[in-house]
């Protein structure tokens, strides 16, 4: 089988080239700007209506669209700019170099800053395994409903609770996240959140817990169990 191109239709070649470049550049889509779905498709996490796109190419195309760009502004407007700047002087230098070329300097800067602050391997590149994701908030966090303030936690750490037999991947990420220790109270709160959540209680956004209607409870179980006194 040969992949040699035949013919001299330059427009087609350019289309292919563009697509290829798009594919290659797709890996620069920041992790929290898109969601990978169970069935292999992608959802844009920026746009409030969460469009689902079948392929990476379509996601890239969507990301170049007007609607998306306006949502992008909205999205980053909410976020605190320059979050990791103080800790990462080096990437900032890099930013400065690129800054000059950018058409929308502020926007690009913000985006790059966030990206560098998170500083991780590209998400959708199949050659690379996501190993180091320090302090990364996972895409799911940005999804509503947000937990009430006292339990608002970076769930990326929740998932990486070091547990027996969780395999090398989990251990590694646990090791990476260890530099930022969680205070005991916070850990207790976290545990309680997870326990309640996994036994079918849902935070209603006003600091109270309600029963998930798809989950069964003991008949005398009206309130979520009190946190253990320490």
């Amino acid at each position, binding site marked *: 089988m040969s992949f040699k191109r035949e013919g001299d239709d330059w427009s087609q070649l350019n289309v292919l080239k563009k697509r290829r470049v798009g594919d290659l550049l797709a890996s620069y889509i920041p992790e929290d700007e898109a969601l990978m*779905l*169970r069935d292999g498709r992608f959802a844009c996490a920026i746009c409030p209506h969460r469009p689902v796109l079948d392929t990476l190419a379509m996601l890239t195309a969507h990301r170049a669209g007007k609607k998306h760009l306006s949502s992008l502004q909205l999205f980053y407007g909410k976020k605190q700019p320059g979050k990791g700047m103080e800790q990462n002087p080096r990437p900032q230098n890099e930013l400065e170099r690129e800054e000059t070329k950018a058409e929308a300097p502020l926007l690009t800067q913000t985006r790059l800053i966030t990206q560098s602050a998170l500083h991780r391997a590209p998400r959708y590149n199949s050659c690379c395994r996501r190993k180091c994701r320090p302090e990364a908030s996972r895409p*799911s966090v940005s999804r509503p409903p947000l937990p009430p303030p006292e339990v608002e936690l970076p769930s990326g750490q929740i998932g990486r609770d070091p547990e027996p037999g969780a395999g090398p991947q989990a251990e590694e990420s646990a090791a990476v996240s260890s530099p930022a220790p969680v205070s005991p109270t916070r850990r207790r709160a976290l545990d309680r959140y997870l326990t309640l959540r996994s036994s079918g209680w849902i935070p209603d956004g006003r600091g109270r817990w309600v029963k*998930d209607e798809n989950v069964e409870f003991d008949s005398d179980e009206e309130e979520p169990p009190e946190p253990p006194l320490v």
Partner: protein
Amino acid sequence: MFLYNLTLQRATGISFAIHGNFSGTKQQEIVVSRGKILELLRPDPNTGKVHTLLTVEVFGVIRSLMAFRLTGGTKDYIVVGSDSGRIVILEYQPSKNMFEKIHQETFGKSGCRRIVPGQFLAVDPKGRAVMISAIEKQKLVYILNRDAAARLTISSPLEAHKANTLVYHVVGVDVGFENPMFACLEMDYEEADNDPTGEAAANTQQTLTFYELDLGLNHVVRKYSEPLEEHGNFLITVPGGSDGPSGVLICSENYITYKNFGDQPDIRCPIPRRRNDLDDPERGMIFVCSATHKTKSMFFFLAQTEQGDIFKITLETDEDMVTEIRLKYFDTVPVAAAMCVLKTGFLFVASEFGNHYLYQIAHLGDDDEEPEFSSAMPLEEGDTFFFQPRPLKNLVLVDELDSLSPILFCQIADLANEDTPQLYVACGRGPRSSLRVLRHGLEVSEMAVSELPGNPNAVWTVRRHIEDEFDAYIIVSFVNATLVLSIGEDCGRRDDALVQVYPDGIRHIRADKRVNEWKTPGKKTIVKLVYFEMDPSGQLNEYTERKEMSADVVCMSLANVPPGEQRSRFLAVGLVDNTVRIISLDPSDCLQPLSMQALPAQPESLCIVEMGGTEKQDELGERGSIGFLYLNIGLQNGVLLRTVLDPVTGDLSDTRTRYLGSRPVKLFRVRMQGQEAVLAMSSRSWLSYSYQSRFHLTPLSYETLEFASGFASEQCPEGIVAISTNTLRILALEKLGAVFNQVAFPLQYTPRKFVIHPESNNLIIIETDHNAYTEATKAQRKQQMAEEMVEAAGEDERELAAEMAAAFLNENLPESIFGAPKAGNGQWASVIRVMNPIQGNTLDLVQLEQNEAAFSVAVCRFSNTGDDWYVLVGVAKDLILNPRSVAGGFVYTYKLVNNGEKLEYLHKTPVEEVPAAIAPFQGRVLIGVGKLLRVYDLGKKKLLRKCENKHIANYISGIQTIGHRVIVSDVQESFIWVRYKRNENQLIIFADDTYPRWVTTASLLDYDTVAGADKFGNICVVRLPPNTNDEVDEDPTGNKALWDRGLLNGASQKAEVIMNYHVGETVLSLQKTTLIPGGSESLVYTTLSGGIGILVPFTSHEDHDFFQHVEMHLRSEHPPLCGRDHLSFRSYYFPVKNVIDGDLCEQFNSMEPNKQKNVSEELDRTPPEVSKKLEDIRTRYAF
């Protein structure tokens, strides 16, 4: 990952059994097929023990097996119908102990297909032709003959095809020397197929069709066809020609019918039924197998019903016209797949499930009070005869062949604290099921144990004369005395000729009390060798020269005198300086050293034996010897060395080493199955023997022994007499070749699964049977029947009826032999049993209600209840298999109390479907309810459903968990990887497999890798690729319903296939474990047919390369026996990937020497090097 497949124990279930004189001598042998294995068994007419002579794996599915003998011949040949699309004729070569393929004729595609012949075989009773038939349409007839050199010839096939015809059974009709004739049970479905109203389908009848092979015209004609009233299931051919009336017996539901050509009217006799049977009386009764016995003067048939009752069938004739069929209840044995009556009066019963039996036919049942039923007795249509089943009367059990088949479940663990793990195997079916504990070792049967006055230090046996068959005396040596025991009636002290060795010299005491004495020259440690020969007159002669050794002699061994020679050729001497020397005893260079070998430690004992020779007796009846000489060296550090001793030069080569135990190794020469073997004694006793051209070194499952000697007597021709402290024991090792010895504990119903309670090591077993009554229902039905009996009786018979009813209620026939009553479709019975696996006693037993079928069990702890252990049992309610329907299910929750000995009922949780899989998961449980995967937590009144995933394809058959990952095996769609997200309380599918696999069992190998087996007999290993992302999300848009539905819409990430391998038998358990202490890990599997095998990883590329080449050469140099291509067999369903077949590689040892040489030359090695490599890889992982 590259794996090597090794079989530890071959399949034990038997699918076919035929008998005949395969070795060409007077003795009758049995050939059995065990799926993909062909085995030759010989029942010893004297001892009644069944010995296995030869086992060959054929790498194909044996679908039919027949024996035939050419007219006037003395030797039987074997015809094999297999999935190879070829007919194969085999001959057993006793001199080489192998099956030789004489003819292999290709006629169709390979595989088990409905129109490719191979399913049925029939031979002309005179051995002139063989018919091979497919299930549908095709039938081929081959004419068998002999050429000028008296070799068997086979013709090109003659077709007897008929389209649109299904075949149920084919037999060769005995017509004497007229044209060969075959009878077929057929059904023509053409009309039924073309009639859309279905009327024709309802009216279609089965026919009995005769095909005649016209030897003159050389073609086959469909001679005669006749529709049958009842639907037949098999045919029995009736002796003809000069021996009987010819014709066939048709076995059908409730009736047996005799049919023949010409004026012969049909003779029909109902099949008798058990009196007061608990079975459904509406259910028909059929015969399932039969055996024919024919002598010059008479013949009879033994036919077995599906309840296990054997009837003796005889035919009354009047001038070659059959007038009457007579049936007489003979005995009841477990339901058989095949039966063979041998000329020596043995009945071999190859059981459908469980152990096989050899019975002696003690009486023919001619002159007892048992009523005889006849076709001539007038009966109403639909009425039948009744008989009373009873314990064995005509048969006497003489031998039992252990069979694990079917193995339903197995776990390997060291529950008995023995260092080496045991295999806990749930096997059997229905009332014949058992839990068996397998341990590596040879079973020892103790023939006699006698106490002695003191602690002896040695024991020997001698014959009265060299030509005697049996030993006459046992000589027991004490520190200061010698005790001679005579074998036979009077066991006491006897005086006869013997040689006493004492510290100062040797004393030769003769029968007449004359004593020759030889004193050693002075007191010194042995550094000299003095050679004596005993001349024919019984005089002890000393050889004039003596041999000075460089160091003290610690041990010596003389080889046995080869047949036809005066003296043995070599003497092996072990010295203190850690060497062994071989010294010549040839008169020309007597006491000249020939070779020497340095040892890693001081030798303790030596033994030269001849092993590995296949020829035991040549045509003239002389004992041949083509085996190799081996020098076995037992070292003081507990190591056994086995070295090949060159029979001419005395050179030592090819040393194999094995650690036996902590004590110095003592060696004794014994005889096992006509060959020499070595008994090695260290802290454990081992037997080193050659069995079917492979060396076995197996520990004896017996207490420590100190000294032993071979022992032959009438009762025990190949025994061992041994000393253990102050007792003398006579032992026999009968199950040579078996890797495991087993202890069996009976169970009530078919065991489905069991779990081990980790704190008490008790087993919790679920046993479930379909078509069965629970104890309660059985008792109730019995009571009901007894009441009916009394009610049905007239006024005056009341008392008698009441007595009979009482007798009926008290009657208790063991179900393991007589079978359990069949309750009908959709009737289930289950128990939950807590068992101590060491003692085998049942600690607790919970009977479930009628029609509750237990399918899954788990033992777990819940995070919200502390340290208590709970047992969860998944039960289906009113399950009907076909067409499938179920009324729901329950999950029973029990608390384990009393240190895991008792089950305390907590509650039961109703569910919608069958809960077929339960697995503990993060302090809760995952339950597969039909196709729903759910997380349950323990509640107060029931289990509480906390989370659910509805996207599994069909039916969850198993659940494995690791970390947050859950690997679900679907009954049809392979594996599905699910991740539990705690903070969202969701189970999300993130990966699956690309192949459909009907998964039966699975085992996790590591975080990303899972091994699984399917119901078609494949094992696979699949792995998630390294970039797999298990943090995928559900579609957030909410339009999932539109896009996400449908089975084709699988997960986006796919697992990769690491290996694929077709085992050929359905694998029902897989476990990653180490089998020997200090060994490496291997993947152990057990199969439905009772086989146990392992897959072991290669540790180096060179090894893999080497074995790949061995396999490649063997595929071409040693093609499988039944004509199936090895590579295509191992790739039956999926192309074989990354697995090398050790079973094929090990056939290297049974190849002919010149071929061995060719293959090993290709590999740049010598044959012993290759076989050493084969042995090494086996002993590194297993036994």
